[in-house]
């Protein structure tokens, strides 16, 4: 890849959108997709949609908190096995 700023079209950028947001593309492809998304008004709403979706999904972390009693139960079981603390 002599040219990391190779132009890509909308359909390619959209096809690679998930890989781009997951940072799973090569640096050259990351640059190419970023450069397209930065200047394409048509693709931007789709980028925003995907980002908001992933952000909301990530916030699910807070939805399933572990009960404190469970932590204590696991520690108690481990102590019987020899854990000291």
């Amino acid at each position, binding site marked *: 890849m002599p040219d990391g700023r190779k132009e890509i079209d909308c*359909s390619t950028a*959209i*096809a*690679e*959108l*998930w*890989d*781009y947001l*997951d940072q*799973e593309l090569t640096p050259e492809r990351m640059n190419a997709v970023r450069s397209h998304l930065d200047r394409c008004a048509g693709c931007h*709403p*789709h980028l925003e*949609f*995907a980002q*908001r*979706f*992933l952000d*909301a*999904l*990530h*916030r*699910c*972390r*807070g*939805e*399933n*908190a*572990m009960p404190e009693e*469970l*932590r204590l*139960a*696991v*520690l108690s*079981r*481990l102590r019987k*096995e*020899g*854990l*000291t*603390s």
Partner: protein
Amino acid sequence: MDDAAGSGSAEARSEFEKQVLPWMPDVYRFALSLTREPAEAEDLLQETYLRAFRSWQTFQPGSDARRWLFTICRNAFLRQRERQRREVVEEEGDLDGSASFLLHARMQSDGSDRILSRVDLAPALNAALAELPEPFRSTVILVDVEDQSYEEASEILGVPIGTVRSRLFRGRRQLQEKLIEYAKDAGFAAAATRDGGSNDA
């Protein structure tokens, strides 16, 4: 067995406490995503930590303890479920960001995309995640909730990276479909019914 943390040195036990115990909430979330039932997730968490404690000597110093725990958890779950393992037929063919694009275009056309900026979607997505079938659910949880890379998830799940990618994209698409239903139920898709849409709220 002799080198397990329980019967090993105080140093080994201390390392176990330092590296493994802090990840309990993360492993619980992952266990819950696998079992869907809090009571089963609690048993699975106990089982995971017990196995981890007994096999601490197999942990590679310097490697990622959380990933190691996820792997133990997944294996323990599969063993528990071996008899009743659900067979999910994975669709053939590849799926990429275009599927999400088409779905978003649908949401734009009926106005349901407005829900993205107006409502906290995490509770709805959490409920949708609980309904997502395996193997999509554990893949989405690992990558999107627990921040594992495709490669890390492939190690935990014991499948090639391409399979992780495919399951992830399919899982996301199914979640987005649920999001459309949620938006309609919440009254964000007024145009859909005029449109000759398939259903209404």
